[in-house]
C-alpha cells in the first residue's frame, strides 16, 4: 500500500484513531453519536403474526427463500423434461407446444422467481439488517406485504398451467408479435397471466427494494460507514437500485402488450397476416418491445450477478482467512458494473434488425464492462493467494463459482463482440453461455451461501458428507452439461428447437452428445434433491452449531443470541470500529477481529485499514 493512500485513509476516518498510539481506551474507541433513535419494532402476539404474517425481516427472508426454491424445483423438473425430449425424441414425450411452454416457464422461473427473489428477497432480507447492524428493515409492514405480493405472483404464474391453452410458450423474452398471435401456445390466457404475474412481482419487489435501500442508507449502526459494509451488502444494495430502475421498463412493456392483446391497441403490433388472415393491427413496432425488454433484461443479469459477486467475495475472504483483496476497487467495480449495465442492453439485439450502426456502440460498451468484471475475478483469486484456505463447503462452492463464472464470462466476450455474435447468436452457444454465467455460477454461490449461513438461520450445521457429494456432482456435472453445448452452437444448432432431427449440416454424433448432456442433467438434478433433503433433515438432526462457527467478522455473527432473536441485538446496539475483513492481522492473537471489537481490545494488532 502506498504512503499517499495511507494518508488519505487517515484523513477520512478521523474518528477512528490509530490503535497503536498511547491514548486512553475511551479516546481510541470514539465513534460518532447515533443519528437516529433506536427503531421501534412491531412485536407479534400470535403464532400467525410471528410465523405467517411476519414483519421480521429474517422470517420474511426465509419465506422468500423457501417460495423461490420451491418454484425453482418446478423449473428444474421442466428442464429434465426438455432435456429428455431433446435427447430421446423417439419417446414422443412432449408435443412441440408443451416443449415451448416448458422452455418459457423454465426460463422465466429460473431468472425471476428463483434467482431474483432468492438473492434480493431471501438473502437481502435476512442479511441486510443483520450486516448493517440494524434491528430490522426500515418499513417492516411494507416488507411483509412485499412477500405476499410475491407469493401471489407465483400463484398466478402457476395457475397458468391450468387455464385453457396452458401457459404461454412465447419464450422467456415474450417477444411480440408471436407472444399474442395464434401460432404460439398460450397466446390468449397464458400470456396474460404471465404478464399479470410479472406486474405483481414488480410491484411486490418495489416495496421490498425501497426497504433495502432505505435500510442500507439510513439504518446502519454507529461506526458502520458505507465503506465498512461487507461486499454482500454492497452487491445486494446496488442490485436493488438496478432493479428499481430496470423493472419499470418491463412493467410498461408488459402493460402495453397486455393492451395489445386484450384491447387491440398496436404498440408492438404492425400490420400482419397471421395464418392467412389479415389482423387488425397497424403501425406498431416489435423492436420497441425488444428495447424495453432488454433495457430491463440486461440489468437483470446483473441483478442476479451482483449479489452473487458480493456474497462470494465474503465467502472467499472468510474461508481463506484473508482480507478481501482490493476492497475499494471491488466496491467501485460493483458500482461501475451496475452503472454500465444500463448502456449495453442492445447487445442482445445485434441481429434483431435494429439500425446496424448501433452494433459499434453496443459492442464497445459491452467490452468495456468486461474490464471491471475481470477486476473482480482477479481480486478473488488474489484473495486466495497467500491465504490460509479452508476447504469448507462454502469455499468449495466459491471455487466452483470462480471456474464456472470465468468460463461463462469469457464466452461473453464472444457474444459481445458483435461480429462473433452473428454466427453464434440464437444457437446453443448462447444457451451454454448464459447458463454458465447467470445460471450455474450464481446457483453455486447460492449453495455456498446456504451452507455458510444455515447455522445462523437454524442454529445447526448442514451435513458435511451430503454437502460434499452435492458439491462434486453439481460443479463437475454442470460443467459437463454446458461445456460441450458450446460446440453444438458452433455447428449451428439453433436454440429453442423442439427436435434437432438429422440434418446435412449436423454430424450424427451430435445426437450422441445430446444423450450425454441429458444424462448429466438428470444426475445433476437428482443431486439437488439430496440438497433439499439435507436442508430439511439438518434443521432438526444437524450438528448443533457453535456461535460464529466460521470465525467471521461481519456483524450478523455477533448477535447476542444465535439464531438472532427478534430485534437482532438485544438491549445494546452494536458499535462498529473496523471493516469486516480484518483476518490474520499481524500481531493479533486470533486470526480474526470482528467488526464490533474496539481498538482498545486489540491494541497489539497492526491494523492497516479502518
Amino acid at each position, binding site marked *: *500500500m502506498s504512503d499517499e*493512500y495511507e494518508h488519505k485513509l487517515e484523513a477520512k476516518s478521523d474518528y477512528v484513531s490509530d490503535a497503536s498510539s498511547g491514548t486512553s481506551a475511551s479516546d481510541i474507541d470514539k465513534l460518532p453519536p447515533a443519528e437516529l433513535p433506536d427503531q421501534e419494532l412491531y412485536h407479534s402476539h400470535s403464532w400467525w403474526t410471528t410465523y405467517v404474517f411476519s414483519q421480521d425481516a429474517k422470517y420474511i427472508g426465509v419465506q422468500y427463500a423457501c417460495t423461490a426454491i420451491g418454484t425453482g424445483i418446478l423449473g428444474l423438473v421442466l428442464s429434465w423434461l426438455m432435456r429428455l425430449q431433446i435427447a430421446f425424441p423417439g419417446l414422443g414425450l412432449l408435443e*412441440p407446444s408443451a416443449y*415451448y411452454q416448458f422452455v418459457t416457464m423454465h426460463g422465466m422461473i429460473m431468472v425471476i422467481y428463483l434467482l431474483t427473489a432468492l438473492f434480493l428477497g431471501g438473502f437481502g432480507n435476512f442479511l441486510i439488517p443483520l450486516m448493517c447492524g440494524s434491528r430490522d428493515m426500515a418499513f417492516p409492514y411494507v416488507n411483509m406485504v412485499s412477500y405476499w405480493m410475491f407469493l401471489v405472483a407465483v400463484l398466478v404464474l402457476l395457475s397458468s398451467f391450468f387455464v385453457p391453452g396452458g401457459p404461454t410458450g412465447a419464450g422467456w423474452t415474450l417477444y411480440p*408479435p408471436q407472444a399474442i398471435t395464434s*401460432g*404460439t401456445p398460450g397466446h390468449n390466457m397464458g400470456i396474460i397471466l404471465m404478464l399479470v404475474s410479472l406486474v405483481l412481482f414488480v410491484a411486490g419487489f418495489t416495496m421490498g427494494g425501497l426497504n433495502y435501500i432505505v435500510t442500507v442508507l439510513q439504518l446502519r449502526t454507529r461506526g458502520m460507514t458505507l465503506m465498512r459494509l461487507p461486499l454482500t451488502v454492497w452487491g445486494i444494495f446496488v442490485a436493488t437500485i438496478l432493479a428499481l430502475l430496470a423493472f419499470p421498463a418491463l412493467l410498461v412493456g408488459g402493460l402495453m402488450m397486455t393492451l395489445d392483446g386484450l384491447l387491440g391497441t398496436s404498440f408492438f403490433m*404492425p*400490420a*400482419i*397476416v397471421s*395464418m392467412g388472415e*389479415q389482423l387488425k393491427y397497424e403501425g406498431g413496432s*416489435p*423492436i420497441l418491445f425488444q428495447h424495453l425488454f432488454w433495457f430491463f433484461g440486461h440489468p437483470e443479469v446483473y441483478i442476479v450477478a451482483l449479489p452473487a459477486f458480493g456474497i462470494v467475495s465474503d465467502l472467499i475472504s472468510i474461508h*481463506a*482467512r*484473508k482480507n478481501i483483496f482490493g476492497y*475499494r476497487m471491488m466496491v467501485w467495480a460493483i458500482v461501475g458494473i451496475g452503472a454500465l449495465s444500463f448502456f449495453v442492453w442492445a447487445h442482445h439485439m445485434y*441481429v*434483431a*434488425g435494429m439500425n*446496424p*450502426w448501433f*452494433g459499434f456502440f453496443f459492442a*464497445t460498451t459491452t467490452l468495456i464492462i*468486461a*474490464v471491471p468484471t*475481470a477486476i473482480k475475478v482477479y481480486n478473488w*483469486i*488474489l484473495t486466495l493467494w*497467500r491465504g*490460509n*484456505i*479452508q*476447504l469448507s463447503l462454502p469455499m468449495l462452492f466459491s*471455487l466452483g463459482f*470462480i*471456474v464456472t463464472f*470465468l*468460463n461463462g464470462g*469469457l464466452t461473453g466476450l464472444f457474444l459481445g463482440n*458483435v*461480429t*462473433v455474435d*452473428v*454466427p453464434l*447468436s440464437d444457437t446453443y452457444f448462447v444457451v451454454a453461455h448464459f447458463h454458465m454465467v447467470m445460471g450455474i455460477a450464481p446457483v453455486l454461490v447460492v449453495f455456498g451461501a446456504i451452507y455458510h449461513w444455515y447455522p445462523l438461520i437454524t442454529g445447526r450445521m448442514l451435513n458435511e458428507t451430503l454437502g460434499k457429494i452435492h458439491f462434486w456432482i453439481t460443479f463437475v456435472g454442470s460443467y459437463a452439461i454446458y*461445456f*460441450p453445448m458450446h460446440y453444438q452452437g*458452433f455447428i*449451428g444448432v439453433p436454440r429453442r428447437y*423442439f427436435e434437432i432431427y438429422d440434418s446435412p*449440416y449436423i*454430424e450424427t*454424433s*451430435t445426437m450422441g452428445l445430446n444423450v450425454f448432456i441429458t444424462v448429466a442433467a438428470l444426475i445433476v438434478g437428482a443431486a439437488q434433491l439430496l440438497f433439499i433433503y439435507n436442508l430439511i433433515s439438518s434443521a432438526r438432526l444437524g450438528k448443533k452449531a457453535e456461535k460464529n462457527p466460521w470465525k467471521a467478522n461481519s456483524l450478523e455473527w455477533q448477535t447476542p443470541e444465535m439464531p438472532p432473536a427478534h430485534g437482532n441485538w438485544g438491549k445494546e446496539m452494536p458499535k462498529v470500529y473496523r471493516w469486516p475483513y480484518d*483476518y*490474520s492481522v499481524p500481531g493479533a492473537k486470533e486470526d480474526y477481529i470482528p467488526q464490533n471489537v474496539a481498538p482498545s481490545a486489540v491494541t497489539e494488532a497492526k491494523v*492497516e485499514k479502518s
Partner: protein
Amino acid sequence: MAVAIVILLIALGSIAFHFWSPWWWTPIASNWQGMDDTILLTFWITGFVFVAICAFVAYCVWKYRYQKNRIAEYKPEDKKLETRLILITTLGVIALLAPGLLVWNNYISVPDNAYKVEVVAYQWGWKFRLPGKDGVLGKTDIKLINDENPFGLNLEDSYGKDDLLVDEGELHLLLDRPVKFELRAIDVLHNFYVPQFRGKMDMVPGMITYYWITPTRIGEFEILCAEYCGTGHYAMRGLVIVDKEKEYNKWEAKQITFDKMFAKNKNNKNLQLAKNTK
C-alpha cells in the same frame, strides 16, 4: 486437495475437448472467413486466460491449503498491481474488439453490385423473390397480401411486374456473385440462417432488414429459422443451392413472373367462382 486437481483437469480437459472432439463448425461456404478468424482469435485469447486463471487457482488451493499455524498475508490493497491488471485487461479487450468491429463494418456495408433477393418468412416456411429483368424489386405491403397476390406486391409499381416469385422453399444462388438478402416477415419474427454462410438477421414484420454474402462454394445448404416463431419454429427449413452459371440460368428461366402468376391466380379464382355459381 482434490479440488486443485479437478480444476486443473477441467482446464486441460476443456483444451483436449476443443482440439480432439469431432464437433466443430461446418466448413464455410461464404465470404465471411473474417467471422471465423475473429472467433479463432477470441478462442486463443480467452483460452489462454481461462487456463492461466484455472492454473493459478489450483496452485493457490494446493500451496495455501489450511494449516493451523499458517498465517495468511495481511495486505488490503496493492495499487500498482491493480493498475497493471487493468491495463493488461484493457489491451486484451481492444485486441478482441478492433478486428471484430472491422468485420462488422464489412457486414453492414453492402457492395453496390450485390444482387438483391427478397426472402419472405411466414409461419412456417420460406418464399423468395428475385428482381427479374429490370433488376429492381417492386414495392410490397403486407396489407395487399391475399390469395392472388401472396407476396403483397403493389400492383401500381411497374418494377414489380417482372419480379420472379419462388414459392417452393428452395432458392438458387450464383457462385461468387455477392447477394443482398432483403428480409421480410409477414406474421411474426423469424431469422434467415444458413450455418455455412455464417450470416444471420431477424426478419421483422413491418420492416425490411438485410445482410449480404458472397457464396464461395457450390452445394446444397439447409436454411434454418433462428428466431423463435411459434410451434413450428424447429421445422421451418428450406434449401439454398449454390450453382455455377449454367445451372443457375437454367433454374432462373423456369421461375414465373409476378404478372403471369397474378393472371393465373385471377383466372383460377374466376373459374372457382364460376364453378361455385353453377
